[in-house]
């Protein structure tokens, strides 16, 4: 409880400092809106449904792209871990493409797919796929060899060993890769939404973009706060508990 109070004091202080800066009229209120006006924007956007709609559109794109990236990345990562030739070719490619900021896929996706959902989907998949491949490969290579040996003495061979032993043993690393892939996909999706207007759905990035167009700083900051909250939630609710649980049970941390 004491810990919670400290956190509360910190953020209340931050809010207060913000309000004080606004009251000091240091900068124009157009550039630095008060916390209250940002709150008012969020309240209105929440009530007229634009916020919920945008969150839904964005998260749907994110979820679809991440899941496909994961489903494609897992088997490819297993392949690079199993076959040296795959590691030398596909693995190298994945390493290179993972280092490429995923925003860089946006121009290409636009030319290939136009202003469509497909472009969004493509960018998110490219953001996720490579880090999942690398994490799976890394995870499998970090599996203690004793697991595979024990499995062999019990009669496990080939595909059975890979699916029943190597893959579950690598799970903590795979989840870490998913987390990283999610983070990359999230960043690239925001970039894509800000750059590209797609009529099939207004995402959070679009709201951010139109905030700028309309000079509505309360909207810009409000949406940024929403993005921040989504990122925090994903980490605290989706990934961290999983990761902690796996590392504890697997004895890898």
């Amino acid at each position: 409880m004491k810990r919670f109070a400290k956190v509360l004091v910190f953020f209340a202080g931050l809010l207060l400092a913000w309000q004080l800066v606004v009251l000091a009229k240091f900068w124009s209120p157009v550039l630095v809106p008060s916390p209250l006006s940002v709150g008012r924007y969020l309240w209105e956007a929440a009530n007229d449904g634009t916020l919920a709609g945008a969150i839904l559109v964005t998260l749907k794109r994110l979820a679809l792209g991440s899941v496909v990236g994961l489903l494609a990345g897992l088997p490819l990562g297993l392949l690079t871990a199993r076959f040296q030739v795959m590691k030398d070719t596909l693995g190298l490619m994945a390493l290179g493409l993972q280092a490429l900021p995923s925003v860089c896929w946006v121009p290409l996706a636009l030319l290939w797919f136009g202003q469509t959902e497909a472009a969004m989907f493509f960018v998110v998949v490219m953001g996720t796929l490579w880090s999942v491949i690398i994490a799976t490969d890394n995870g499998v290579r970090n599996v203690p060899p004793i697991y595979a040996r024990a499995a062999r003495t019990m009669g496990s061979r080939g595909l059975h060993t890979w699916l029943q032993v190597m893959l579950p043993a690598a799970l903590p690393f795979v989840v870490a890769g998913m987390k990283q892939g999610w983070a990359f996909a999230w960043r690239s999706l925001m970039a894509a939404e800000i750059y590209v207007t797609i009529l099939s759905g207004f995402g959070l990035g679009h709201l951010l973009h139109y905030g700028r167009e309309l000079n509505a700083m309360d909207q810009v900051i409000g949406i940024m706060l929403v993005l921040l909250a989504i990122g925090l939630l994903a980490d605290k609710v989706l990934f961290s508990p999983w990761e902690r649980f796996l590392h504890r049970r697997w004895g890898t941390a």
Partner: protein
Amino acid sequence: MTLPTEFQNEAPSKLSVQSVTKRFRSRKGDVHALDRVSLDVNEGEFVCLVGPSGCGKSTLLNIVAGLESADEGRVWCDGVPVTAPGRERMMMFQESALFPWLDALHNVLFGLRLKPGLKSAERREIADFYLRLVGLEKFRRSFVHELSGGMKQRVALARALAPNPRVLLMDEPFAALDALTREQLYGDLQQIWQERRKTILFVTHNVREACCLGDRVLLFSPHPGRIRAEFKIDLPRPREINSVELARHATAVTAELKRTAHTGTPAREEASV
């Protein structure tokens, strides 16, 4: 295969190692891990291999298990040459090597699932039987990280016994445990061995442990790995690790161990395998 035959004590098997040689290549040059090692293990016999670390005893165990292959020589199990791991030879390691994503019961079931001809209910019954045998029936649903070191090795023992192998290969299974737990397991292992009639090849660097468990103790010396001496331990069972009789045998083995260590080639650093 039916359930009664599954629980039956099959005749334990006879092992024969014939002139096995193994070399490892390392950056510091070749390491002669095993040099024409031969040994025979009778049906139902409990044989311990003792020696300093790096003397090749674990390598020999791996070759008998079929996890590694010999450069020269052969291992026979019941007159059949060993070329790969087989269900009739189960292995236990120093680390439990249990799978942390499975609970105790499903760790034991892992090997049983790979054994053809068993129905799901039968597998369950067998797994429960062996968990009971090692005294862990209450922990069948516990996960590996919830078990103590001794309990982990008990589950590993149950897992190795469950497919009803005729040979049990044990690679320093108790080395990482505290003394009290270890002593308890000495008693349990002797009892299970007599009840379930297995041929056991047991690797350790603990001389007392070897004398407590083995019908015979084979002394290994390193560089190259060879069997230097053989001791028959004809004490009644179950044996108590702290008994004076046992200490006398252990002293004799230790004296021989020290003698070979001094007269043998100078110890080199062990090559990682």
